[in-house]
Every structure is written in C-alpha cells, then in structure tokens.
C-alpha cells in the first residue's frame, strides 16, 4: 500500500518547484475503494485482535475489554518461547532447504530449457493448484511407516520434525521457484560469458555474477516461503502426529479448546511482531540490492 497521498497538497503549495515526473496526477480519493477494502478486511480484524489481546477473560464466552497486558507476559513463559524458537528455526531451516532445492531447478529451467520451458513451469505449478491439505495428506501416504520409503529404503521419518521439514519444502517450493526463475530469466547471460572469456572459473562466474544478479529474486522467494512457514498449521498438525507443533497450532488450541481468545490473540500478535522484524530486515536488504544490483 505505497500510496502517495501527499501529492495533491504539493500542487497547491508551490508553483515554482517543478516535479521531474511526468506521470499524470490522479486525485488521491481514487484510492478510497482500496483503502476502504484494506480498512475493513485488514485493519478491522487486526484491531479486533488487538482489542482481544488486551481484554480480560471473565468466564466462558465473556471477556471484558480494557488494557490488560498480562497475556503478553504469559507469552514469555519458557514453554511458549521454546515453541516460538522452534517454529522460527524450523521455518528458517525450511526456507534454506527450499533455496537449496529450488535454486538449481530454477537455474536449470531458465538456462537450459528452451522448447520445454513453459511445460516445466506448468509442471511446477500444477501441484500448486491442488489443495494444500490434500497435498499434505498425499505426503503422509508417501512417508507412511509401512510405505515404500520406510520399508525398502529405511527412511522412516513419519511423525518427526523431519517429516514436517519435508512437508514444508515440498509445499512451498513453487512459491520460491517462480520469483527466482523470473530473475534468472531477466538475466543477461552474456555477462557470464564475458566473465569466463576473461578467465573466471565457472563457479566464480556463477558466484560473482549470476548469484549476485539474482539475489533480489532469491530474497523475495525466501521471504515468500519463510513467512507462511512460520505461521504454518496444517503441516505440523498432520505430519508430526502431535510431536512437533508450531506456534500456529498452539494459537489454534487457545482459540478452540482453551476458549482463551485474549491469550490466543496475544500470541498471534507476538508472532506478527517477530515476523515484522524479519520483513524489516528484508526491506533493508532488498532496497540495498536494488540500489547496487540489477
């Protein structure tokens, strides 16, 4: 929502100072439909969540609103901090693995495929059109302790954090491949040729040119998978057998079985704050890249 609302004011302010931009001036009120939508469906629920988190529970089905920060103190209980830590570590590991698996695929598609490029892209995307839940259940069948992997290859990881990791990488892979593929597509491969002509070893050429030029795509992709991984609910629920749950599952339990909306809301907000930190880092990093990079 990077809407520049200050423009109309400036037109009145000074006639002398000319804007360098030749873009047409649209009145600010034209943004009102999207602002309205944003207010109702994003800010509204967020405000409700904040109000919940500061309320006090007075009984089943009754809370009194106020400014009670005690729920946020409860979030810092070692038990919940442990679950926060575990969630973020899992999401970070998952993102890293996604990069390791996704980047070579995107690279191969962009560099070596010509006729079948679109087909490959389609094959990456097709599973993504299936319901997330169904894909996770499919994985459950593959990882089954009595399945082929476990019986014949000895890979018996169902109901462990490894199963959760596999689920994360598998489900979010397309979200990473697409932006990286896009940035690899835009790249000018003659730069790599020039580097090798000038004596750079292939790996150095890759590291100093390809990787640097596609870094914004990698960062975008990584963030695109890291954020939803941190809020993951379905994958740990199905694949960990209750053994390796994320903050999302604990929040779910607070809203449903504990019927404790204030605490559930406080945890949601804490998670949002933690993730905002990562987004801030990203913005810092991404703008820097854009300044010096492609």
């Amino acid at each position, binding site marked *: 929502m990077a809407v520049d609302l200050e423009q109309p004011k400036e037109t009145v302010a000074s006639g002398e100072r000319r804007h360098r931009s030749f873009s047409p001036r649209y009145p600010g009120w034209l943004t009102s439909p999207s602002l309205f939508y944003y207010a109702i469906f994003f800010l509204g629920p967020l405000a409700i969540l904040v109000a919940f988190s500061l309320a006090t529970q007075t009984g089943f089905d009754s809370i009194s609103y106020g400014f009670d920060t005690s729920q946020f103190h409860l979030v810092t209980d070692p038990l919940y901090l442990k679950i926060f830590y575990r969630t973020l570590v899992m999401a970070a590991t998952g993102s890293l693995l996604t990069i390791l698996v996704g980047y070579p695929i995107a690279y191969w598609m962009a560099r070596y495929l010509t006729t079948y490029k679109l087909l490959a892209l389609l094959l990456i995307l097709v599973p993504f059109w299936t319901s997330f839940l169904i894909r996770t259940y499919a994985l459950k069948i593959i990882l089954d302790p009595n399945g082929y992997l476990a019986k014949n290859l000895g890979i018996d990881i169902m109901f462990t954090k490894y199963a959760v990791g596999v689920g994360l990488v598998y489900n979010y892979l397309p979200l990473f491949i697409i932006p990286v593929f896009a940035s690899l597509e835009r790249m000018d491969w003659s730069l790599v040729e020039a580097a090798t002509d000038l004596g750079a070893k292939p790996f150095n050429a890759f590291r100093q040119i390809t990787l640097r030029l596609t870094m914004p795509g990698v960062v975008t992709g990584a963030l695109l998978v890291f954020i939803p991984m941190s809020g993951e609910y379905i994958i740990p629920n199905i694949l960990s057998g209750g*053994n390796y749950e994320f903050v999302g599952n604990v929040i779910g339990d607070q809203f449903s079985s504990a019927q*404790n909306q204030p605490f559930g809301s406080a945890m949601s907000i804490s998670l949002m704050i933690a993730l905002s930190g990562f987004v801030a880092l990203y913005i810092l990093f991404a703008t820097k890249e854009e300044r010096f990079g492609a």
Partner: protein
Amino acid sequence: MTDRRDHLNILAPRETKPKLDQLHRDIVRAVGHPLSRRSALGIGGLALLSACGSTSTGTGATGSSSATADALSGKPLGDHLEIYNWSQYDDPSTYKKFMALPDVAKAGLKINETYYSSNDELLAKLNAGGTTYDIIAPSQNAVAQLIETDKLLEMDDALIPNKKNLDPKFLKASYDPTGKFHVIKDYGVTMFFYNHTIVTEKPQTMLDFYNLLNKYVSKGRTNLLDGAEEVVPIALMANGMDANTDSQDDFNQVSDFLMSIRKGVTTITSSSYIDDAIAGKIILGQGWNGDVRRIVQGRKKQGDITAVLCQEKSEIWSDNWCIPKTAPDPVAAHAWINWLLTPSTAVTEMEYHNYPIPIPSALSQLPTDLSSDPLFNVPAKYTDDYQYILNVSPQVVQDRTKIYTQFKAG
C-alpha cells in the same frame, strides 16, 4: 435465498401472518390496483405496527423465563426443524419416518441439518449468536457450559412422554443435575487396546497402559487420544485423582507424570487411529469403545488385538439432545427428541451408529452379538466408577491446555 422484488421478508410471530395478509389485502383494495407486497406494506407501515402491537405484547408477557415450559404445551408444530449435529450420526430413515408421523406430516414440517466436527465449533457458533438451530447434540462438557452460560431451553417433559423409556440412571447427570436441559443421545467410554503378540503383560487399568508405553515404544507405534480435555483428565483419573480437579497440586503431579511417559508416546491423535490400528500400525493405544470395537472386528483375521475396558476409573462421555434458548421452533424440537426416544427408533439408531442408547426396551431388541458385546453395551460394573469430564471453569480449561501444550512440546 431468491430475492424477488415483490417479496418481503418480515420477522414476526407466526400468529400474525393472517393479520399481515389481511393488511396486504386491505391496502391493495384501498389503492384500487394491485400493488407489490413490498410497496403495499411500505405504505401500510403504521397500520402494520398497530396490527402487530397487540400480539407482540401478548407473547412478551408469557415469554418470561419461568414460563417457558408451560408456554409450549398445546402449541402447534411449525413447518421447519433446524438441526445442528455431528455428521453421519443418525440413520437417514430416522428423519424420513419423523416427517411421516401424522402430526408432523400435517404441519408439513421439513428438516434441515448442518454439521460440526467438534464441540468447540458448536460452542463458537452458539456464542457468536444469531443461530436458528432448534436441535443440537453437544457432548457432556459442552452441555454443562451451555447451561452455565444460559444458552439452553428448559425442556417440557409433557412434550416428551417417551422419556419414560430411558434408563432412570441417565435422566440426570453430573453435567446437568436437574436433568431439565438435556436428553441423552448415546454414550461411551474411553478404554485402550494392545497387540498381544507384542505386548506380553496383561494391563487391566489405564495406569497399567501408561506404564507400558516407555517399554514398548521401540517395538511399534503407540497412540494417545488428543485434546487437552482428554489427555489431562484421563491421566488424572489413572493416577486416582479427580478428573475435574482444579487443584494446582494435582495439576503439577499429573504434569510430571505425563512428562515421564512422553518418550513412550509416538502419536497423539484422535482422527486417524481407527484406520491405522486396523492396518496393524498401532501396538498400544487409547480409544473410544465404539472405535475399538471396529478395530477388533477389523483385525479379526489376524486376531492380535486385545481390547481392555479399564478396571478402576476411566472416562464416560455422552452426546445429548439439547434445545438452544433461541430455537425458533421448540415444539418441533421436543417432538424430534420424543421421536428419538421411541424404542423402535432407538433400535434403528443403535444399529446405525453402534453406540448404546440407554433405553432397556430397545437394547433388548438388538441382535445378541451387538447387545451382549461389552464393547458396545458396556457393563455397568465398569461405568459406575467412571467420570464425565467437564469444562469446570475457564481457569481449569486453561491449566489443562497448558499441560497439554507442554506435553506435546516434549
């Protein structure tokens, strides 16, 4: 809903319908040419208010809480019954036969049913308000909570003559001591099962079961039923404590106990354990008796599953018919409950869902392989000591949830 322009939806007592129709006709006549309902009633807004005035004050006077029961008897059935239920929990013929009952058919009553998958979902819907359910089927803990938050209608026994068919032991319960807000739908117990080709001990109590977990976890998958309201109270009972305790000492003790067996638990799930156990994947697990019965039947060929109804204390649970206070048609709701208490209906139902309905005259009509199976018709000598698990207070529910979260986090 189709939005016809000449159609106006008015929320008003049913008795006022003739008056409203009369009003419509009067106005049409006065104007001299046909009007749509909406514009006619728009013109006649004032007249409409005065026409309804007498009726609404009338119902307001009798609508006080103490008079709910008496107010219902003698009132006619409506033409719509809205049921909010667990899915696939009642035989389809039960609905058809109900609508074919003389009184019900005369009223032209139609049933609409929607489903929930957990008590939490039901509670959330009712707490949010604005529902039009006539019938709900909450479990015992939800019943108690709904009574506490004043969401249930006190039933009128005069409209449920078949209540006399119920085993008197099931008329009142710890979750509804007056017995006025619920009629039991069916009940069951929590037990456990094991693969006796692997587990050589003969566990008899839930504590025996817990104590074997650490030993056998390396031999195959072990499973506990999930949910804070299962894991914590069942472990409390196994250790001889009150399932519905609010004592912090008890909670500390049970938390230590649960953490000591944590390494012995492979999975904590209630959703897929039947299929997994039938596939032979679970060697030691908790289960509800109806499910365990299916597991034993499913493993008949291998014959390797022993099912154990717990000696000493375990959980007894129930699902119940209740009527929300906001039910639009409580008379039809009573008629539905009365129909479900008919012995012949109860027989059909039990053959469908395989959980006992405590109606002796119906149980005796069942085929003996069902009625004499202790996994179906659990003998009273077990259930006498069993406890219903309740949502005692928000604090207790939260304490249980924290122990459960800690247990899962390991």
